[in-house]
């Protein structure tokens, strides 16, 4: 356990003392910020138009969760698709290239501790990235008013979206870690991760072209399906099970790959 923490601290140190983490934070803030501002002004235009037409039914149906926060948070999914391969590519591939893997192999550290240490370190980064856009509901809640009094924001769907985004990030990170353990160079690791993640992104497109069990299977296999429900404010056990399964399977495979370096 102590060695796991030592590895988490080292990996986080690398991310936070180099430009990598800040690129991610900056990009995440910029992208979500851009979407937030544009969705907010669209919301205002529609509201103004409804007021001008004196159409209260439109105003009643409008809410900031669906029209502003939803699109803003869903942009995180895209960002993870491109950013996670960059942060996970170095995890194990770099150790192999720099020959520092030998240190871990000859230290009194179990393979599983190495794998978990690296995964948790990325998990912390993903957690920060998932939490960054919470600034927007805070702003809306501070300045907006709900139609029935109270704040403008309904918090339950915000939390469930944040949880979904976080779980998706962790899932991507576990896949990235696996790819990094298989690849010998960082570039290969990043490309491989991106290929796998992008493939997962395309699954719903493929699902739309087939029928029956295959369709059900492809839809279930696509990460987007499971995030989607969370984004709408529904936390299903089957979605949590899906994320847990992919994460645990990837970590178990990574463990096997790392372990295999001991008998190659």
């Amino acid at each position, binding site marked *: 356990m*102590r*060695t796991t923490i030592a590895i988490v601290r080292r990996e986080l140190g690398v991310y936070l003392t180099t430009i990598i983490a800040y690129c991610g934070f900056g990009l995440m803030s910029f992208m979500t910020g851009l979407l937030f501002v544009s969705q907010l002004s669209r919301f205002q235009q529609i509201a103004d138009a409804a007021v001008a037409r004196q159409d209260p039914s439109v105003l009643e149906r409008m809410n900031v969760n669906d029209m502003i926060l939803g699109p803003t948070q869903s942009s995180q999914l895209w960002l993870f698709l491109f950013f996670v391969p960059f942060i996970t590519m170095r995890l194990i591939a770099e150790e192999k290239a*720099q020959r520092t893997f*030998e240190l871990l192999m000859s*230290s*009194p550290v179990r393979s599983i501790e190495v794998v978990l240490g690296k995964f948790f370190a990325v998990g912390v980064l993903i957690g920060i990235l998932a939490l960054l856009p919470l600034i927007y509901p805070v702003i809306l809640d501070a300045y907006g008013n709900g139609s029935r009094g109270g704040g403008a924001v309904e918090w339950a769907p915000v939390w469930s979206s944040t949880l979904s985004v976080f779980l998706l990030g962790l899932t991507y990170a576990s896949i990235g870690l696996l790819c990094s353990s298989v690849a010998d160079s960082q570039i290969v690791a990043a490309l491989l991760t991106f290929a796998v993640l992008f493939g997962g992104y395309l699954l719903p497109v493929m699902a739309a072209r087939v029928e029956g069990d295959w369709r059900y299977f492809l839809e279930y296999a696509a990460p987007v399906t499971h995030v989607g429900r969370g984004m709408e404010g529904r936390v299903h056990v089957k979605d949590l099970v899906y994320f847990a399964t992919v994460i645990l399977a990837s970590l178990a495979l990574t463990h096997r790959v790392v372990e295999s370096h*001991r008998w190659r």
Partner: protein
Amino acid sequence: MIEVRGLTKRYRDHVAIRDLSFTIGQGEIVGFLGPNGAGKSTTMRILVGALPATSGQAIIAGHDVFEDPMAVKRRVGYLPEIPPVYLDMTAREYLTFVARLRGVRRKDIKAEVERVAERAGVDHVLPRLIANVSKGYRQRVGIAMALIGSPDVLILDEPTVGLDPIQIEQVRKLILDLAATKQHTVIVSTHILSEVKATCSRAIIIARGTIAADAPIAELEAQHGASLETVFTKLAAA
């Protein structure tokens, strides 16, 4: 302290080492000698548990390397041929990290890092990024790393490669100092003969994966009636 019996390592069709057997006692400084590709590094990596053997047995400080690798790793300090240093860390951060990995108690870490840094002569580069220090210092940071936790056994794979003559002298002196304490059993691999003469009491000459000779250096020279150079060339070519 170190007992190796019938150690063999095969990579598919290629046999890296064949049926190695030797014993090294507590406090001995042994030179592991051989031309490049003779199987020195392979043997060392097996001894530290970084690589499994195809067959055979290795016991270090009473623990079988294959049965109980964790116990062995806690008792062995290992410096690979290329020092496994993280270029993006300072020497202090790096040594602290390794101390944590090796299970040094939290309150002792700072003192331990200072101790090994002073021992390896890198105390004044502790605050510098490893990427910015010379190759010689990187090598010595590697040696400091191997010393963390005062392991019973030190395994140094070509510790003087790439160093300038003054640094080589310093590393040799360091090994001799360690030898003088009698606390560490040291294996130094090298293909530089003068190094073995300068630091070791005994040489194991290994050629094409088998042991060609295993005797105190003086005895080797007496036996073959020549200097170590001649003995080495003769045995390695045989």
